[in-house]
């Protein structure tokens, strides 16, 4: 099979679930062996769009995911820089520590951290939820930025510094443009991971913070396919939009191949 066919097959596999959501969100009373739903109805979907709970969930998800994405870059960029561009004792160990959260199940960290966060009065706050999302998010941000920095030529920065640029100017005019694609990809990745967090949001949010996945999970526990599909569409729409916006960064330069001189 040629690569082209393989890519088409993959695309098909990725599109089918979305098509199924579309059908189920609007088909009402569709039972086997009927070939066609009893009727098509957008009422349930539109009601979810108007529902204050869903709107609040959407807003809070948006705030949290955006915040996490910013925080993750703020913390992840310096970390990745030090880990990739400096040689020091214990570097491998620290790199490993960064990846520990990907191995430990989030229920375990979540339950323990909930008690700590409750004591610190961070539980039930947007900031608390953002902080806890950083645990699963940071490893991927550091990995993405790190692999890009592995090919990064610091001589450009030295050159600018020699010519008299301040460290801030060096970052703004040299590092940032060179690393932009991987920063964008890392930021989007952070957003995606935060957007789909359930267990950690549930535990740390304690019901005061309601995110879309929490609404989605509680709907899923009821087994009403139309409701689940409607909420799923609302859940994936911003992600598709976001991916569309950054599509040009997602190609080959994504994980690091900034052009070398």
């Amino acid at each position, binding site marked *: 099979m040629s690569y082209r066919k393989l890519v088409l097959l993959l695309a098909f596999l990725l599109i089918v679930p979305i098509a199924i959501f579309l059908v189920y969100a609007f088909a009402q009373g569709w*039972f086997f062996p009927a070939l066609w739903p009893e009727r098509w109805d957008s009422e349930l979907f539109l009601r979810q769009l108007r529902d204050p709970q869903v709107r609040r969930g959407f807003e809070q998800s948006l705030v949290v995911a955006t915040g996490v994405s910013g925080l993750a870059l703020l913390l992840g960029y310096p970390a990745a820089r030090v880990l990739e561009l400096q040689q020091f004792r214990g570097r491998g160990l620290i790199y490993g520590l960064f990846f520990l959260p990907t191995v430990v199940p989030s229920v375990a960290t979540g339950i323990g951290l909930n008690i700590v966060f409750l004591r610190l009065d961070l539980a039930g706050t947007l900031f608390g939820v953002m902080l806890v999302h950083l645990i699963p998010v940071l490893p991927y941000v550091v990995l993405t930025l790190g692999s890009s920095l592995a090919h990064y030529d610091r001589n450009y920065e030295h050159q600018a510094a020699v010519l008299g640029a301040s460290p801030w100017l060096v970052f703004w005019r040299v590092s940032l443009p060179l690393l932009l694609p991987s920063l964008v990809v890392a930021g989007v990745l952070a957003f995606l991971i935060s957007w789909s967090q359930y267990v950690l949001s549930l535990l740390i949010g304690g019901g005061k913070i309601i995110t879309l996945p929490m609404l989605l999970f509680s709907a899923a526990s009821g087994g009403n396919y139309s409701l689940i599909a409607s909420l799923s569409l609302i859940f994936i729409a911003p992600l598709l939009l976001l991916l569309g916006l950054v599509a040009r960064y997602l190609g080959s330069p994504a994980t690091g191949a900034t052009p070398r001189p």
Partner: protein
Amino acid sequence: MQATARKRIWNLGLLIGLLSLIIASCGSNTATPTSAPSSTSLDLSNWTSIEQAANGQTVNWYMWGGSDSINRFVDEFYGKALKERYNITLNRVPVADTVDVVNQLLSEKEAGKTSGAVDLIWINGENFASLKQAKLLRGDWGQSLPNSQYVNWNNPAVNLDFGEPVESLESPWSSAQFQLIYDSAKLQASDLPRSYAALKEYACANPGKVSYIAPGPGAFQGTRFVKQALFEISGGAEQWLGAFNQQLWDQWSPKLWEYFNDLEGCLWREGSTYPKTENELHSLFANGEVDFSITQAIAGAGSLIKENLVPASARAFVFDDNMIGDFNYVAIPSTAPNPAAALVLANLILDPQLQAAQILPENGFGLGYGIDPTKVSDPALAAKLASAAQQLGDPATPASDLAKSLRSDIAAEYQSLIEQGWDANVLRK
């Protein structure tokens, strides 16, 4: 340059280490209670003072959120009334499983919080027992609400929650009774099995067209299905009432497993797998794989039809005997941040007008009365309750059938014996 950079990193590491130490020690210091307990100051004998205290509060009601129609009923009927009558804002917090709320409350206790996030919980059964055991529920109010006069607290189905004494820790919301659902487009009412014995005959005459929900924690419907068979096989439910009786169990349980093992070969997929939730069974039923589903709603199939979960021709029915009925409740955690508003809401739930609204399938809730309609003396309200009961329509089981077959639940010890016994003697055999 390399050397200074390295030094800087070590300094940074040291700084971070110190910072985290400071944060950690702050954490353990604040473990002592920080906010004053607000729960003790409410005077339930002076209801007006409670309503005044609740004015302007937000009540955080944590409840299972899997049904769009129940969610809407709560927002439209309680949310609006709370705002208009008492200036209370309802914050309905949907959870996928009530055990999440139990865990939240246990974490809050662990962290030494006296003011938490949860004001009211929709609860019954094992979650109630856990919270009662952990002493996490407010206990001075259930039988003191003004509308509590409409509740029949002498009914063991009300004052025992899965065999656990309710005391004043909960207040009822609604009632439920075990029923089956069939499709009137496919089956005649006269052909329906009306006992467990007849169900086995039906299943073996129509192999693969019957299934039931696997008993187990979180699937009380399945446990109840097996428990009712125990009533029939042992010759009646009366002997099972009262305290747990090991001898009686040892006498009849082998016969019970015999029945279910005989039935197994005739079941959907020959009993190699069972639906785990009511909704899985509804889905099998709606798609014509099995002939019967299970519901607990007084509106029968009515609310399910409205939600498009089952075909419009679905109807509810009961066996001639041994159909277990019970109540579900709301409870207030002792750490509720807005206990006054929670009390007002718990009282509002028992308002006869809203009770009449909750049983009607078109309003989306569809469970039965939490109150006893005969205790409502106001003629207009009593008429409203009676007329609502007459408007349930075809998808509901006739009230006389329900009453004739109604049995109350039995001691909690049988619950786990049935769940473990079924797992060992039926599922794994």
